[in-house]
């Protein structure tokens, strides 16, 4: 009974309060999203990934670092479901532990880049004038760079390693967020309630933090969700080139690189981590597509 009334309350044509309207809109969005089966698959995969990462030590059948040279390059079997690598380590266990590395990289980059972008974009949009000109010119310069090459050069300068890889990816991926945040700010800036707050004596900093930022955040989050797959691929690329996580850390891109020399005879060493990367970034893409369909129904199929 309550179930029904909650639903009716959410789907009401004539919401009584702003909160009801907002929750109702969210619920409508969720219904649209749920109807998209592929997006739900993506969501399920990602929930699974988070669980696997959280419980990695308990799930992994073996120690991901334990070498067993007698067991090297074993094909998939009952004792090693996905086979073993050149040092006899269990690939499945390494993949399971590697999910933590992947989530760490994606999470950190997806946290840093939008924050830099938010800061640069809103300040540029809100201040206007020469501040805007200078900040946007810098943004354009970074946008004009090939992202991966710039990340490569950064890692080269800072030295390889997972922290520097994250930093390089964040430094190269903030400009689109800055553009987005600036565009949002420009529309918000002209809104009447900003003028009202200004009349009440709110200073620019207060306006920026209290009124502009909260409104920019939601669109930046959506954009970040859409970017996740790209970040995973870039991170794996850096790992593949030997510039990301250093051995023996079980990073998926680096694992592919390890398997590269044996590709023709021992295909599973490189194939398995690649499949993992593919599945996870596919899941992010499916999720992002679903989110976009909710927010911008024009693009998707009917």
């Amino acid at each position, binding site marked *: 009974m309550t179930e029904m009334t909650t639903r009716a309350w959410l789907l009401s044509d004539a919401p009584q309060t702003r909160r009801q309207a907002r929750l109702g809109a969210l619920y409508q969005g969720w219904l649209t999203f749920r109807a998209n089966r592929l997006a739900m698959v993506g969501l399920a995969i990602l929930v699974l990934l988070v669980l696997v990462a959280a419980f990695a030590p308990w799930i992994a059948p073996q120690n991901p670092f334990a070498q067993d040279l007698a067991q090297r390059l074993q094909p998939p079997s009952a004792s090693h479901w996905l086979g073993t690598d050149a040092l006899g380590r269990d690939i499945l266990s390494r993949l399971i532990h590697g999910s933590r590395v992947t989530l760490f990289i994606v999470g950190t980059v997806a946290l840093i880049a939008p924050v830099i972008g938010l800061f640069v974009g809103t300040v540029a949009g809100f201040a206007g004038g020469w501040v805007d000109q200078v900040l946007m010119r810098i943004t354009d310069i970074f*946008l004009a760079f090939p992202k*991966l*090459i710039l990340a490569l050069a950064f890692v080269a300068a800072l030295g390889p390693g997972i922290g520097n890889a994250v930093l390089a990816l964040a430094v190269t991926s903030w400009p689109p967020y800055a553009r987005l945040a600036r565009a949002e700010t420009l529309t918000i800036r002209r809104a009447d309630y900003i003028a009202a707050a200004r009349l009440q004596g709110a200073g620019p900093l207060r306006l920026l933090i209290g009124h502009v930022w909260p409104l920019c955040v939601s669109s930046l989050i959506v954009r970040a969700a859409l970017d996740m797959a790209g970040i995973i691929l870039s991170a794996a690329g850096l790992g593949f*080139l030997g510039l990301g996580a250093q051995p023996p850390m079980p990073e998926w891109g680096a694992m592919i690189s390890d398997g590269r020399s044996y590709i023709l005879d021992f295909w599973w060493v490189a194939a398995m981590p690649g499949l993992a990367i593919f599945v996870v970034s596919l899941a992010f893409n499916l999720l992002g597509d679903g989110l976009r369909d909710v927010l911008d129904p024009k693009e998707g199929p009917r």
Partner: protein
Amino acid sequence: MAQPDILGQPGQGGPVPAGHRPGAGGARLRRRLRSLGGILLSLALTLLGLLLVTFVIGRIMPIDPVLKVVGERATQAQYDAAYQVMGLDKPIWQQFLRYMAEVLRGDFGRSISTGHAVAQDLLRVFPATLELAMLGTLIGVCVGVPLGVIAAARRGGWLDQIARVVALVGYSMPIFWLGLMGLLLFYGILGWVGGPGRQGIIHDGMVPTVTGLILVDSLMAGDWAAFRDAFSHIVLPASLLGYFSLAYISRMTRSFMLEQLSAEYVVTARVKGLSERRVIWTHAFRNILVPLITVIALSFGSLLEGSVLTEIVFSWPGIGQYITKALLAGDMNAVLGGTVVIGTCFVALNLLSDILYRLLDPRAR
């Protein structure tokens, strides 16, 4: 990595003011010159920024450039002399000016791993990358554009679904992994294509270099065997890059077309009794040509970039492999030189699409 951001906001060049009438020649010329000046200025600023960033990267790196030149066993006097010759005792802005002047002269310094001038190395490796990226883009355009147009015209149909899956997989696949799997299948198991590298051993260096593009050079030399060999080597990596390019191009084409197909002038065209094919290709498609060119330019740029990973997988002697090898050897001159060259290509591509936009869109003329 074939996931470029849409950097060049199509249409940002700005529509022409409404009062614009044909015949207002003088004003139009002045305006065009001014917009050209604007483009050149922003181009110069971007290139300056590019050099500044590479300069900063070159300075913050933990490798001592002097030591790399004089070697570990140099005396303090030798070291100091080299330090001065390299201008490292000067203020930092003077060092930057010097760096800028060198780059403008095409002098990127000497590569410590190959022993040649970096510029000379780049000239040698760049055509290999260019050949790969051009062929990839060609595939991407020839397949991606029609696929995107048809997907939009038959929205929700089976071809639209296929196009969607193709793009999704393309966006999600690590390019280097797909390359490895391709090598395993088509070279290792089926033996349909040539293996890693650009040419087989017997043909290596046999064709005189004219353009640096082996496919073209071997045709010019009339060496069919060399052409076939080069083709069998390039076909896999180029198809791979082409796949990523077509995933992106078809998606953007579809989205542009959907926007145009819902426009009123499309209804007008249908009211006139035009066939659907004519409505789509003569009316709607002509309207997306301009943004499409930007997308193709972007995609070409991202293939230059994506070639870094692809070249490693296929041992392709291009700029990507050059940069990566230099990176691992701590050969900073080579890394920064390569970065500047690829960055300049990006800027040039943006400029090119900007110019084409102005030439092709009647509203911008």
